[in-house]
């Protein structure tokens, strides 16, 4: 009997999800023994043409990481959807947009202007910039089209499961793969796998008190106490708006959560959830005082939506001049 087929693909990503899979350490041998890995461009010989030649639905499980940034990413999303029985958005980029998603607070033109014309080390007197098709003396060269916005995988194709995290933590990856390898019944399509059903605060372990904040601190401004809630101490921590499952690793290392496991369960928009959370803990009623406290929060949009901008309600910066 042939082994179930597994594919792993990376779109606009950093490679951290690949390393996370390998950080299951010696268990990777069990995984490789159970599955027939039919496509994994970072490690194996199979080409796009090989995937095209596969029968539709013949890949039993595809773990797709990375956001949809350009036309090649999108093409592979459609191709792998067609060829896969079960396709999971693996990691924060595929699920929510993650760090590349911060580009949605810019435009393609602004990005190109910065990268190819404005950075101080760029020497480009002829104002050259990359183009999808270029004539060279010998013929024509092409590269993928860079889209205006970053999108999540679920915004371009139907996705069966979502595995959050930047990256998904290896013990969670192992739990998901082991369940599949043991033939466990998978939850309904659209479910989140490899994560908890609460917020990061559940896994944190620091003592929490009633919060009445008169000011906020940037992380470098103070040395916070190690056993008290960071938000209690005035440091913005995304824990209250973030799904559990990572083990609260950052907070245990005395750094505030930044929300890489995505929105808490039943929350559509992680950023405005944090708006509510922060608003609840400010101890002021006068608008002027409230505003001066809010002035101490640096970059609310980029902090509350650090990992989830493309999957948010507003999705990207609008063109309105403000």
């Amino acid at each position, binding site marked *: 009997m042939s082994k179930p087929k597994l594919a792993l693909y990376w779109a606009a990503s950093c490679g951290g999800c690949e390393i996370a899979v390998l950080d299951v350490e010696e268990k990777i041998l069990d995984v490789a023994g159970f599955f027939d890995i039919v496509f994994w461009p970072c490690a194996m010989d199979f080409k796009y043409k090989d995937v095209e030649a596969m029968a539709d639905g013949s890949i039993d499980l595809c773990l797709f990481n990375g956001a949809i940034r350009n036309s090649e990413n999108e093409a592979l999303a459609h191709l792998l959807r067609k060829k896969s029985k079960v396709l999971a958005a693996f990691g924060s980029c595929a699920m929510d947009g993650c760090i590349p998603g911060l580009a949605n607070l810019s435009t393609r033109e602004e990005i190109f202007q910065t990268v190819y014309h404005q950075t101080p080390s760029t020497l480009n007197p002829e104002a050259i910039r990359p183009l999808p098709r270029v004539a060279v003396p010998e013929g024509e060269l092409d590269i993928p089209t860079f889209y*205006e*916005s970053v999108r999540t995988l679920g915004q371009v194709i139907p996705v069966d499961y979502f595995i959050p995290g930047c990256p998904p933590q290896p013990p969670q990856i192992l739990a998901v793969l082991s369940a599949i390898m043991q033939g466990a019944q998978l939850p309904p399509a659209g479910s989140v796998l490899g994560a908890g059903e609460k917020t990061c605060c559940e896994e944190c372990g620091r003592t929490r008190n009633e919060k009445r904040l008169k000011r906020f601190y940037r992380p470098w401004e103070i040395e916070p106490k190690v056993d008290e809630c960071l938000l209690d101490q005035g440091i913005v921590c995304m824990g209250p708006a973030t799904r559990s499952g990572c083990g609260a690793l950052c907070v245990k290392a005395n750094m505030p959560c930044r929300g890489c496991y995505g929105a808490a369960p039943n929350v559509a928009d992680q950023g405005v959830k944090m708006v*509510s959370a922060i608003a609840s803990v400010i101890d002021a009623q006068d608008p002027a005082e*409230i505003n001066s406290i*809010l002035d101490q929060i640096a*970059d609310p949009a980029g902090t509350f939506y650090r990992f989830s901008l493309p999957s948010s309600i507003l999705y990207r910066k*609008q063109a309105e001049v403000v």
Partner: protein
Amino acid sequence: MEQTRFEPRIVGFLCNWCSYTGADLAGTSRIKSPPNIRSIRVMCSGRVDPSFVLRALQLGADGVLIMGCHPGDCHYQEGNFKALRRMLLLKRILQQFGVSERRLRLDWVSAAEGDKFAQVCTEFTEEVRALGPLHLETSLLPQAQEAGLEAQEAAL
């Protein structure tokens, strides 16, 4: 041909105890108030989750108006202060997203203030009219991506 004047679509969240009653008063007193406000009654201005504001904008609203009880008069003690803090922070987020924070207004209208209700609605409608339509809902459509493609091809 006469140019059609832009009629802003505004979603209004009115709290049950004060501003919704104030709106009723404006109505029964026959005080003129622009029809642009689509009213939704909530028990308290503190019920308005920031995501409601964003959803309204996403679904086609050009502005969102929230009205609650005056500070100190909230039926639930502090609900209106929660609303105030939330909306002040949300305005900053809107600015970062390139949406004018002037499209979101929080104001206090009591049950007895039919005039004030009409006045706030009129002011806000004109403010949003001056800002123009928002067209947020189109940004998610594939056409926007294609427009990006065309622009890139055109640069060739």
